[in-house]
């Protein structure tokens, strides 16, 4: 196959203009974790079933295990490392902490980023909407009750801040 397979990729990563060289078919999850050191992006199933590798691409939740390097070009990518400001946690992160929605923490980055996506599209979700919105993110530690509660209170807080 002709043509170079090492790409020069320009994209925005957590608000910073970024250029990197990578094989065109390297998975985005590997670039973020191994090349960029952003280990808040987790990998579990590697096949789109668990949501641990969720990132935001142009504001929408996407699975970084099902994206290749070439697809980063010109995109705006946010990982869990990029959603807080300095030492201040994002309101959704705070709500997860305050509601005890974290046990081992492995699913948490994906849960939080899926919540960002959900609340962008639906700022006042019902409990059913929350369960449906997070149905692509698996937690194997405990029930989902505290996670649902964390999302509900985060939504309330964000609506309060907005008004």
């Amino acid at each position, binding site marked *: 196959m002709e043509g170079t*397979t090492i790409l020069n990729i320009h994209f925005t990563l957590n608000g910073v203009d970024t250029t990197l060289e990578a094989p065109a078919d390297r998975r985005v999850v590997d670039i973020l974790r191994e090349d960029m050191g952003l280990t808040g992006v987790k990998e579990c199933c590697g096949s789109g079933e668990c949501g641990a590798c969720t990132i935001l691409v142009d504001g929408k*939740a996407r699975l970084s295990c099902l994206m290749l390097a070439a697809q980063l070009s010109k995109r705006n990518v946010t990982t869990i490392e990029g959603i807080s400001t300095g030492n201040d946690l994002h309101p959704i992160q705070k709500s997860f902490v305050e509601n005890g929605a974290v046990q081992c923490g492995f699913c948490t980055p994906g849960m939080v980023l899926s919540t960002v996506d959900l609340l962008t599209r639906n700022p006042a979700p019902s409990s059913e909407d929350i369960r449906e919105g997070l149905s692509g993110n698996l937690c194997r530690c405990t029930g989902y009750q505290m996670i649902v509660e964390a999302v509900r209170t985060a939504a309330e807080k964000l609506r309060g801040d907005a008004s």
Partner: protein
Amino acid sequence: MNRNVFLPETLPELLELATHYPDAVLYAGGTDILVQLRAGTIAPPALICLERITALRFIREQKNHLVIGACTRLTDILESSPVAAHLPVLRKAVRVLGSPLIRHTATIGGNICTASPAGDSLPALTILEAVLELHTSEGARRSPLHEFILGPGRTARRPGEILTAIEIPKPAGFNIHHFEKVGQRSALAISIASFAALLHMSDSGVIEDARLAWGSVGPTIVTSKAAENALIGNRLNHDVLTHAAAIARAAVSPIDDIRASALYRRQVSGNLMLRLSDYRHPATTDTRHIL
């Protein structure tokens, strides 16, 4: 590793690449192809990613049809008001496909070209009588969906050919749009069996017309004129549905796999019909009620 990934931005660019690299594998959302690539079940020399071709992402309402671009993401279909108004059966099927994360990426054209017997949009698209638009650098052709899907993972797509759009007639007169799938859990489950129905029920509760299709219980989507005829002219009462369910069980040709046995699939294909009794009173047939 280290294969090229092309990212065309226009249809002419894509058609040229597809002609030039006939062995390259196309992917739109990648929710199936990239899993196969990782598992090593495919090893193409190059990949062509379709996500940047904005001309293939649209939902256009015409007088008698909806036309959906092949690279339209399932989330866009769920959020479309023309789809909600005219194609509730498709909306219901897409709503239980994968998860929000999968639906943000996966496309309607991908679900068709993957040609999985368990593809959740396929029973709905079959009874909606969807017609596919296919392009090569030489020209275009049209194909009914049911003639395009040949078997598990096999389609009539020719080398260098691109599925560009799906044309779906607005189903006139069908006041019941039903879809249900059975999986091992509610999100992210591959269907064990699925069932789509379009029914025209009269004000007095008699079925005037019926289109039925089952997924995951045969090499391609299963339809049954006999099961449809068992409903037409009748009310959705216990005897009628039990009789039609028996016909459905005879019509399907399921296999044993890791998700379920053929015996279970055959049984549940009929049982799924019994759910139509939820619509037996004409007052409940308003499509708004069942959305």
